[in-house]
């Protein structure tokens, strides 16, 4: 076998490897990219039905109720807020240790036809002062929190509270 021939084989093999990796990546991207949405985003534009996405915001104070799913499994229902909008979430499973009312939360799941978000996963964070960056961003976008002015206000009065300085100024 000549050198040229061998090089051709090698290049073909490498091209095949790279090509299949690219093709696989692109097709997998198409179905499996998970977008992040805040409750306000969803109110503005509902995501396509059946498509999984991540929902983030603060757990509204006093909104958590524990119930039992029809098959007897323990579940929880709570509301997630980013200020202007809230969204009801149901989750069947053990809530993470650091799940608290008034704290930032990120949940993975789908929006049901009744407008209730069915979480398949509620993300655990190992620090109680930790605010997921997407949630911080969503709160900033909704104009309810300016991170440079300190910690987020308690979620209990988010919906009744007068808009913060950043809004009244405009």
């Amino acid at each position, binding site marked *: *076998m000549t*050198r040229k021939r*061998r*090089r051709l*084989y*090698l290049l073909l*093999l*490498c091209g*095949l*490897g*790279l090509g*299949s*990796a690219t093709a*696989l*990546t692109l*097709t*997998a*991207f198409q*179905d*499996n*990219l*998970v*977008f*992040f949405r805040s409750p306000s985003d969803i109110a503005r534009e509902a995501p396509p039905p059946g498509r999984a996405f*991540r929902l983030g915001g603060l757990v509204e104070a006093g909104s958590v109720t*524990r119930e*039992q799913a029809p098959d*007897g*499994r*323990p579940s929880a229902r709570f509301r997630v807020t980013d200020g202007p909008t809230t969204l009801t979430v149901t989750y*069947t*499973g*053990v*809530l993470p*240790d*650091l799940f608290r009312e008034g704290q930032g939360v990120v949940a*993975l799941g789908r929006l049901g036809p009744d407008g209730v978000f069915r979480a398949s996963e509620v993300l*655990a*964070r*190992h*620090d*109680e002062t930790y605010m*997921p*960056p*997407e949630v911080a*961003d969503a709160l900033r976008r909704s104009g309810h929190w300016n991170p440079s002015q300190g910690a987020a206000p308690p979620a209990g009065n988010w919906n009744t509270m007068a808009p913060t300085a950043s809004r009244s100024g405009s």
Partner: protein
Amino acid sequence: MIPELGHFALALAFALALAQSTLPLLGAHRAEPRLMAAAPALAAGQLLAVLAAFAALLWSFAVNDTSVLGVVQNSHSAKPLLYKLSGAWGNHEGSMVLWVTVLALCGGAVAAFGRELPSALQARVLAVLGMVAAGFLLFILLTSNPFARVWPAPADGQGLNPVLQDPGLAFHPPLLYLGYVGFSVTFAFAVAALIEGRVDAAWGRWVRPWALAAWSFLTLGIALGSWWAYYELGWGGYWFWDPVENASLMPWLAGTALLHSAIVVEKREALRIWTVLLAILAFGLSLLGTFLVRSGVLNSVHAFASDPMRGVFILALLMLYVGGGLALFGLRAGALSPTGLFAPISREGSLVLNNVLLCAIAAVVFVGTLYPMFADLLLGEKISVGPPFFDTAILPLAVPLVAAMAVGPMLSWKRARLWPVLQRLWWAALLAAGGALLCLALEGWRVGPVLGFAGGLWLVAGAAADILDRVALFRRRPFSPLAALRRAAGLPRAAWGAAVAHAGLGVTLLGLAGMGLAQERLVLLHPGESAALAGREYRLDAVRDVIGPNWTAREAQVTVLRDGRAALVLRPERRFFPVGRTTTSEAAIHTTWLADLYVVLGEERDGGAVLRLHHNPLAPWIWLGGAIMALGGGLSLSDRRMRVSAPVRAAPKGTGNGSRGEAVAGT
């Protein structure tokens, strides 16, 4: 006082590293033996200085010196000593000190064991290692001083994150770093070879032990991290395709490719350019891993307090080293003319296939890990890429890789025929098909487990077939196990190592396949009630309070019944750590080696407790396989040929540099 000494030792190490990165390079360029001989001495000096700094840091944590900021933020006097010490590297600053300590250890090892190297090569390798060390020492000194003081000193520290207080995680970072940093040595060898413009079989023989050692440690580190996630995080999962996990997987994939292509360089002097490139890439991916974890750019449970300055600095270092390495590669790779002819179907050909597939997988992981970051930066869109992406994109690449893995080692060098090899593997193929069919019959069509069982059995049986073939147990007449045993003892350890490592991956695949069949059940039980899962009854007896050294807990007593008889008692806990005001779940795990019974205690409500029951078939095999793979690496490493001192090159054929092969009297 001790922390100041540690800080001073770091500065001293930086100065020594600067000298180490320039003088030997100059010496090698001018062929001045005395300057070259300074390299091992400087490396030893740097090692001593860095060790002193590391010892000072450990001491500060051991005595809980609360005037040191790192101790205040990450330690507490009520912690057991092991976690006080592991707290030293459980934070950003300390872990960077560990990083340079491991790097200095590698430099010291090159200085100590590399006496058989041509002195110019050794000088250049140590110089490159010195450059890497200088960059990271400067990073520590400028942006993350581990010895920063606070005044007034608080009465006690704030404690280490409770999930990190675990023996598995005490050893996970050092092992991982041994792997990451080990690739800096192969990188240094690659750069030195590019400067010299020569890569030959001897170079391959010097690089391979380092690649092997780094790979073995990285394998152990990843397996340990995955095991920790399994038993400590309490989600019942072992791999989440979290960016930080991917950060360690990418260098592992590139390192695995490097390990295999270095074989071709050593045996056949082919694929030389490619191997040099891989060595640069493997180190680049290790640095990328460090950058991803340390800069806090990632939205992940591992993310440390983010500091843009640090991220920019590590990114600059990354560009400097990888960019510099690649630029040098572009300039000098032409000097390495391709050599070594081989047919597509040959041992070399199979190793090329291995490299192509491993690199393709690494590329997929790379894109999946970094794309969300770029999407955030460029498009302002918050995206995450989860397990489904990696599963669908990697599976089609992993299938041919595993299929070829059992065949490759049995092909002969240069030119081979596929059919005779396949004939010798017929029983492995039969076993694999049987496993897949059994899984199909019992569990129905589930892609992952079916392919996993087939692949795992294929690899284990293939490795066995390879060894049986080499010792000619069934081929020689008369049938004589004793003679075969003698031949087995005479086999090179590298052959054993390869077979063991391949079988180890097979064991891991079997474990993954078993976990694909895991069952889970979520129940609310009152004391005395029970729930069934996978043929067993789980009865909640009681929930009570427990007090530990630095935590209090609620502990459930769960009796597992089989056929109505009590088989064992599991005690899952929910621990509350008053110092950090955090709660963690301690899963109760009982392993039969064929399955794990895994119970997590959730919240308590209405006088009952929420329990999550898992039945995880073959789960321990995942990490057992990792340990077997690392063992294979170790076996291969103990091969006599790996030791450079082995009499393989009695007369150095160096004429290129004048100084090559000269006795290094100065060391």
